[in-house]
């Protein structure tokens, strides 16, 4: 098992890349939803 650390790093890398991207999408989604709600409220009031 002399190359096990390469194997482990490669597997972690695959899921880390997807997970980090999903986190970034989820954070952008929540910020956009807030912006949309705020704008809708402003438009209703004004």
């Amino acid at each position, binding site marked *: 098992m002399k*190359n096990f650390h390469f194997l482990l790093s490669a597997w972690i890398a695959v899921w880390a890349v997807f997970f980090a991207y999903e986190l970034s*999408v989820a954070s952008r*989604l929540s910020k*956009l939803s807030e912006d949309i709600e705020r704008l809708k409220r402003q438009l209703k009031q004004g």
Partner: protein
Amino acid sequence: MKGRAAITVLAAALIFFAGYAALFVAPDEATMHEIQRVFYFHLGSWAAMYSALSVAFIANVGWLVTRNPHWDWLGVASVELGVVSCTAGLITGVLWGKPAWGIWWTWDPRLTTCFILWILYVSYLILRGLIEEPQRRATLSAIFGIFAFLDAPLVYASNRLWRGQHPSPVILGGDNSGLDPTMGKVLLITVPAVMVVMILVLVDRYRLEKLRYELEELRLVEEERGSAANSMPIKELS
């Protein structure tokens, strides 16, 4: 929301089983031994990339033909997922290359065409960020996306057309190619595991683009209201 949670749990279970199968079920490869097990997720990343970029290509053509914004949202969402999957494929390749070849990287035809593909689609995303007008942005990026996709079949064919450091294909590679039946079965778990994750993220990324469009529309309404209020005669305002 419940459906989404169920699919996420299913995806997590699939990832776990895929890892287990790749580590404990798949047989040891005769020359590379344990490092060959990178193959199961390396191939999964490439399958996800080809699927995402094929969807992007269809969406780019769809936008140019119909001018329906749904195609544009799907186009940019799938290109981003294609870049993410390509990045995962390149990283796993580098981490497999070092112990197998003794070098991190070489300008072999497969690696070079793949790196060019990555650069092309990153350029697509940069291009989109530079154009403000939505219609123009969608049209120019669709044209660029179709052009970039020309490299995808070249990446696939590169190790069939030219000899290089990268191994010859083991699947659909002709008479001298082939895969151990157990390895093939393990691939049937690992490739769908990566694909399911890719599709789940793609759905979220598509929703994000849809919300961006909604926000742009609301801002336009706000601006129109603002300019209408400014152009009102003084009497009406008071």
